[in-house]
């Protein structure tokens, strides 16, 4: 599976599960979902990356865009479950602290 994502809302929280590979080819598929979260001004977005196997700089850029845009409309973003290659890339880019992984 190249990429899979799933959004589940519960009260103020939107859970966004991203699995597979988030990269230059698949990151654009995530954009409509990000647009919707921003438009709906969701107060809290939890990004569950426990199913994410691979990320590249375009995938990181998509997550940064999600983070900045949700915060810009007053929401909170947390990233949970990152492991293996994605976790290593976040650490390399010092984003593990921002995302409070």
């Amino acid at each position, binding site marked *: 599976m190249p990429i899979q994502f799933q959004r589940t809302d519960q009260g103020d929280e939107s859970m966004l599960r991203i699995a597979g590979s988030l990269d230059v080819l*698949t990151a654009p598929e995530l954009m409509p979902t990000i647009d919707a979260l921003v438009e709906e001004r969701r107060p809290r977005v939890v990004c569950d990356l426990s199913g994410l196997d*691979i990320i590249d700089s375009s995938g990181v850029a998509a997550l940064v865009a999600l983070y900045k845009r949700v915060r810009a409309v007053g929401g909170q973003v947390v990233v949970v479950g990152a492991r293996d290659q994605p976790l290593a890339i976040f650490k390399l880019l010092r984003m593990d602290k921002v995302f409070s992984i």
Partner: protein
Amino acid sequence: MAARPTIRLIVPGTLAHRAVAVRVVAEACRLVSAPGIERTADGAAYDLRHPFDAEFVSAFAEIYNNIAIHAYGRRTDGGEIELAIAVEPGALTVEIRDRGAPFDIGVVSSPDLDSLPEGGMGIHIARALLDEVVYEPGPPNLWRLVKRIAPSAVTTATADASA
């Protein structure tokens, strides 16, 4: 080859390098059987579930093994194996060239399947799974493997997304 090769690979003609060649052929299969479906760099996405892919790769592996074993005699300094791959809508052509010992494919007989053979099945498998298996002794020796796919067997991006 009729179509212009789009992918070329050169590897040392040893069994240790077979996996490199198989990976490339498997990816080329997907460009034919599932065009437009972007694949990932991740191993989990790699599979031979599509019969076209499984059949081509099985046939290719037999021919590759034969070159490494028979043409190059399992030597690690024997020479190279070169692939020229043409991906077309609905068809895959893989040409394989080696500079090992040529042989007369005309004298190779079909295996007697009723006697439970313990060898001599490789070329038979390749011929059964592909549309075309041509051998021309060299140097370089040339194998041309061709398989066409029925349009209905192509996985479209749309069909996959709805699955």
